[in-house]
């Protein structure tokens, strides 16, 4: 019965992916892509990878979908660009290479990486093996990922006109005071803030973490801005810029501290768990601010 469910889920995801690529309008392509992301995150749940499922639902389907909707002005009107042979070939080749690589993991002789990751968990500072991989074993990769996010935001801000550089980001909608959106923007953020903080905290021992919790926090900030409960920040303010780099800076500082104990990003013995938690919370705040401001877009005068 559950095998039938998995087959239906996998085939539906595949069909949605194809439909998204072949969609006739940009809006339809984006809507189908979001639905595809939700199904893929359900597939990750079925495979027991709840961390990945959370990240896929929050970032892959939710945030990326919003970014694409914003990036395609008049998306409902414009026809989708035609499929070109070269990008299709590159994508197909990449997918094929990944499939071969994944199939190869299962055939690797001797112990798998999973077993080794579990064996060293006691020294990694996290009971959740995914968090251990992200923050301890592969600290460098995760650190660079968070830096890339910041660079992306700089690129978005660079689209601002010269006169607006450093000016306020614009998230203004027309909101009636005490209207529906205004009430929603007051009702949901308290629940969302607790949920986001909980996701970061629980990431050390259960599915969750800085990216998943940070996305929830970003959504709450965006909602509060859209509902006109808080003003959109000035992109030039020192406080905002500090907020954006605080997480990666804390990560880098903790990594440098590790060099005193032998290796970059190697946590000092006994301080693994506090180090992981501090970096997680710092990262969550910076990730939340970066993602929210990515959606808000470059500073501009009256949209």
């Amino acid at each position, binding site marked *: 019965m559950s095998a039938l469910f998995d087959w239906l889920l996998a085939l539906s995801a595949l069909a949605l992916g194809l439909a998204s690529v072949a969609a006739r309008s940009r809006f339809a392509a984006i809507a189908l892509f979001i639905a595809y992301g939700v199904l893929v995150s359900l597939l990750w749940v079925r495979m027991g990878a709840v961390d990945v499922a959370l990240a896929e639902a929050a970032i892959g389907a939710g945030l990326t979908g919003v970014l694409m909707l914003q990036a395609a002005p008049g998306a409902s009107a414009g026809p989708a660009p035609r499929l070109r042979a070269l990008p299709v070939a590159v994508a197909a080749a990449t997918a094929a290479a990944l499939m071969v690589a994944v199939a190869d993991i299962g055939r690797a002789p001797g112990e798998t990486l999973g077993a080794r990751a579990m064996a060293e968990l006691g020294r990694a500072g996290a009971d959740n093996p995914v968090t251990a991989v992200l923050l301890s074993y592969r600290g460098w990769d995760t650190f660079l990922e968070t830096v890339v996010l910041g660079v992306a935001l700089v690129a978005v801000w660079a689209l601002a006109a010269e006169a607006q550089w450093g000016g306020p980001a614009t998230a203004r909608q*027309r909101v009636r005071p005490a209207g*529906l*959106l205004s009430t*929603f923007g007051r009702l949901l953020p308290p629940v969302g803030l607790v949920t986001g903080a909980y996701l970061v905290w629980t990431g050390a021992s259960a599915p969750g973490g800085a990216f998943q919790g940070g996305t929830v926090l970003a959504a709450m900030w965006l909602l509060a801005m859209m509902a006109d409960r808080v003003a959109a920040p000035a992109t030039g303010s020192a406080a905002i810029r500090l907020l954006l780099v605080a997480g990666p800076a804390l990560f880098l500082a903790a990594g440098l501290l590790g060099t005193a104990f032998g290796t970059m990003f190697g946590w000092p013995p006994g301080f693994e768990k506090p180090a992981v938690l501090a970096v997680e919370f710092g990262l969550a705040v910076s990730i939340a601010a970066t993602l929210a401001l990515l959606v808000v877009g470059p500073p501009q005068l009256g949209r």
Partner: protein
Amino acid sequence: MTGPLAAALVGAGVLFFLAGTVGLLRFPDLHARLHALTKADTLGLGLVAAGVALLAGDVLVVARLLLIWLLAMLAAATAGQLIARAARPRPREPRP
């Protein structure tokens, strides 16, 4: 006894989801489609959650199911209203 009752509740919930989806696909205009989608799905999710809650052995799990239903209801109601309002023709709306 709880088993068949839970199955009946989940089954009824699935029927409401099905009805909401048929309405979304078949109804003639946006407001009718929104009506089918938000109302039928909210009731469907409530029935499914009630059925699953019967099978859950833990009060905390039941509380979480209830919270999920309430949040989904809040989100569906708000999103439905906002979409309906955005689709409304507005030549005579006063400018702020």
